[in-house]
């Protein structure tokens, strides 16, 4: 066994982010994924670069599931599949004949996963569901802005990505269970659920829960925030009195720790302390400050932009960043496999496929002759 999900076959009926990325996470763990798209295709193909990140590792075919012959073709794929994944609006899978009941009748031990915005049943399931709409409703935007300020759109699509990873967690768990019991099953997750999972501590509530500490743009308080050095930003993380004292000593400002030794005194003078540290950090280069702080055992690091990691020699060596030649986006650098495994490492199989790139190949594998394929293409069943 080379990869953790070696031998697992996934029929991926999803599009956009929360669904598509589930299948890519499974592909990274070694699963063989075929993305089945309608003739119109995944609506996010217009973003060819990002599409890489959500769909690399898959093969892609075009099948018109509104046609009976298209469904028959899909059923042949499903007969040999371990996992079926969909993210249609509730009710659409049934209309297309790819709902759990139909699929299970063909493959009784199938693991069938749905990722939706709201869930399969309930009052809101027909509402549009995109990450920012769930960020807005779930309090994430309000909380980031802070009471009385404009809400803030988080640039990390937290609910999409959390839903995708949780979907993959569920599938891996169901596959492990199936390997022991022989039983497949149906599972689902949603952006509603992931919005809470990715804010689980924030949603925790109890009688004496304190008000959240106030927050500016740069952090929570003077000891736990971003500071600007002469050549770039850094993050200082002192969450207790001991690390605060160490930081003050390392910065040659021990009197700050003497004057403000505990959280109460620090919070009372937070503005002054922050202003003093701002002036101090601005006078030196970032790496100089980081070295001093790190040598003293204080938690800190540079603040960078996300794509900087492509330039880390470490990231290249460790495979966290990989290159690919994408049929639609050209040469790209993207993320490697997110999780490490000592024995079965996982793999980035291939770049994201172009629309219908593997139709002939995949149909050939499930027994369609070239003549069959030509006829199906003629009839608009495949593309």
């Amino acid at each position, binding site marked *: 066994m080379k990869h953790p999900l070696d031998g697992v076959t996934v029929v991926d009926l999803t599009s956009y982010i929360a669904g598509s990325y589930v299948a890519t996470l499974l592909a990274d763990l070694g699963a063989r994924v075929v993305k089945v798209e309608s003739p119109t295709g995944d609506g996010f193909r217009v973003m060819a670069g990002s599409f890489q990140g959500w769909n690399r590792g898959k093969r892609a075919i075009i099948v018109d599931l509104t046609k009976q012959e298209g469904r028959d073709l899909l059923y042949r794929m499903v007969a040999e599949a371990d996992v079926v994944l969909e993210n249609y609006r509730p009710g659409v899978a049934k209309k297309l004949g790819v709902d759990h009941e139909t699929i299970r009748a063909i493959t009784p031990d199938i693991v069938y996963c749905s990722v939706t915005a709201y869930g399969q049943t309930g009052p809101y399931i027909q509402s549009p569901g995109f990450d920012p*709409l769930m960020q807005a409703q779930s*309090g994430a935007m309000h909380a980031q802005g802070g009471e009385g300020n404009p809400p803030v759109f988080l640039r990390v699509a937290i609910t999409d990505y959390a839903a995708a990873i*949780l979907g993959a967690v569920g599938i891996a768990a169901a596959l*492990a269970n199936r390997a022991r019991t022989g039983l497949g099953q149906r599972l689902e997750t949603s952006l509603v659920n*992931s919005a809470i999972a990715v804010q689980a501590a924030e949603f925790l509530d*109890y009688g004496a829960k304190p008000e959240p500490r106030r927050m500016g743009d740069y952090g929570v308080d003077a000891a736990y925030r971003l500071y600007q050095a002469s050549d770039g930003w850094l993050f200082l993380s002192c969450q207790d009195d001991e690390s605060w004292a160490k930081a003050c000593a390392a910065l040659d400002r021990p009197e700050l720790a003497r004057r403000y030794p505990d959280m109460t005194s620090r919070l009372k003078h937070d503005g002054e302390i922050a202003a003093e540290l701002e002036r101090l950090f601005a006078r030196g280069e970032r790496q100089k400050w980081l070295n001093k702080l790190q040598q003293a055992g204080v938690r800190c690091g540079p603040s960078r932009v996300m794509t900087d990691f492509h330039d880390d020699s470490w990231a290249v060596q460790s495979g966290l960043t990989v290159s690919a030649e994408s049929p639609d986006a050209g040469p790209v*650098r993207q993320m490697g496999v997110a999780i490490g495994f000592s024995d*079965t490492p996982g793999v980035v199989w291939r770049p994201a496929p172009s629309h219908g790139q593997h139709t002939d190949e995949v149909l050939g594998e499930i027994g369609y002759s070239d003549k069959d394929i030509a006829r199906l293409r003629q009839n608009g069943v495949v593309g």
Partner: protein
Amino acid sequence: MPGVFHSIKLLDLACDMPGAYACMLLGDMGADVVRIEPPAGSALHTRSDFRLWNRGRRSVSLDLSLAAGREVLERLVARSDVLIATTSPRAARQGRLDFDTLHRINSRLVYCAISPFGEAHPMADLPADDGVVNAYAGVYGDQGGWQEPPIYSRLPIASYAAAFLAALGVGAALYARESTRKGQKVYVSMLAACLAMQTGSIVVGPRVRSWARDARGQQGANPVYRLYRASDEWLFIACGNVTFWNKLCLALDRVEWLEDPRFEGAPWNIPLENRDALRDMIADIMRTKTRAEWLAHLAANDVPCAPVQTREQFANHPQVAHNGILSQSNDPVLGRMRAMAVPIKFYDTPGAPGTAAPQPGEHTAEVLRELGDDAAKTSKGARP
């Protein structure tokens, strides 16, 4: 009904949130979780969020510096399927809690190590936490926007994502074990977790449009995919494809925008220099009605939109109640408590939120009994 991990025994050696949250997810999904505590207890017990993360498990207090305590640990390792550890690689080796040592005791053990930067990173042995990793991974830098100062993200994204990835890695390794009959080491870093939450926006290439360069302002960079203020309150409009862009123009009674060369490429490829103009025009229109009026009008025109709410409002959202994703319980320390339930719905093996977090060492005697009579004799290393 049992959870999907009902036959799995998990040893929790986590000393921070990502590991503890991963244990909670796996426990709620049915795993039998035993947490190892140092005799003095850990500082985490005083934190209220650990009343959530530590739920559903049994707590065993062990002094691992004593031979007898070490023996109990090794017997627990011998019978466990999964171990989750968050100590640094160096500390793990020093404490003989590293993978190689424990794998010799139990070759079927899946050992999941969660660390800030990963074990091969140059910063691997430097002190770090959620804020340091988020800064390093660019979460704050990208939130600030192109050539703007970074902005602190209030959600500990690195920690949450690491917890999810750990649960995924453990599930996949348990699946692999059914074929290989062998456990292995699973590595999860909070850094990789940040990147896994952004795989779409970190793709770079000469022909790839850079999201980082597009990032402007805190209410959204795309004028038809951003926050607007109605006459009273805020809402988000999400027109992420051409169909919705068309519908928005119709709903706002501005069909001429569809022909306007400035907005060619809408919604995602409107030239940067024309975005502010469109944003200002939409903002002017949005100010003319209340949010409730806009939500009704836009929904009637099939334009995706949603109100900005507080978490308390969301907790009372009818769909949240329907999904049962928040559950109420009585916690011996916090009292009446509302917390997340199981975020993944398994139709046949649903699992359930675990019972209240234990006091340190609450189950030492019980677990020692399970290990058999010999273990009771060695219990000098264990503090009930």
